């Protein structure tokens, strides 16, 4: 499952089930949630926008790389679009592999790469204003 959704529609159980495979004993799932602070300032919410078709295509490339490089059977990546309040889910990545080490390594590779290559932009809202975040490159 590769998808862009509102945070309310993101369901970790559903994403876990989407990668389950009887040949795999390990699923590693990374869940990125909205922190209440950034460099000491109080964050009130985030807003995500994407160049949607390209974002889906770049997420699909990442999933394919994880399958090839980490022998993952299935990989799902779901990213939130629109408003995300503190504590809400911004991104979920699930990687299923036969043995557990590869699931951790593949999942970590996926979130690191996502931040580098997927055209999604985040705006942080503070009590006293907002700004676009410049993480990568």
């Amino acid at each position, binding site marked *: 499952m590769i998808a862009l959704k509102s945070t309310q529609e993101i369901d970790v159980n559903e994403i876990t089930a989407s990668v389950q495979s009887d040949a795999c004993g390990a699923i590693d799932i990374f869940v990125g949630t909205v922190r209440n602070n950034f460099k000491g300032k109080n964050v009130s919410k985030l807003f995500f926008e994407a*160049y949607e078709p390209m974002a889906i295509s770049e997420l699909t490339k990442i999933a394919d790389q994880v399958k090839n490089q980490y022998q993952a059977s299935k990989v799902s990546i779901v990213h939130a679009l629109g408003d995300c309040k503190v504590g809400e889910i911004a991104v979920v990545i699930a990687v299923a592999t036969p043995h557990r080490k590869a699931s951790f390594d593949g999942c970590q590779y996926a979130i690191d790469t996502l*931040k580098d*290559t997927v*055209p999604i932009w985040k705006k942080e809202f503070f009590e006293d204003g907002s700004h*676009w975040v*410049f993480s990568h490159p």
Partner: protein
Amino acid sequence: MKILLFGITKDIIGDAQLVWELKEDQKTSNDLLDALKERYPELQKLRSIALAVNGEHADGSELIKQTDEIALIPPMSGG
């Protein structure tokens, strides 16, 4: 041609799309990016700015046609 804008480039250019007349000397994606930076100097102040051509990250050498889908890609911040 239309150039898609996202994130801070929308704020800089003031719209979600830019209508752009492709000139004779704008052959590659690098030429086009240079012309955009010249027209909108604020783009040069970003930590990075690049183009996507038809939904792929441009490396600068792509030959640009009127029918290509071009997007300005400011620093990404997903996740």
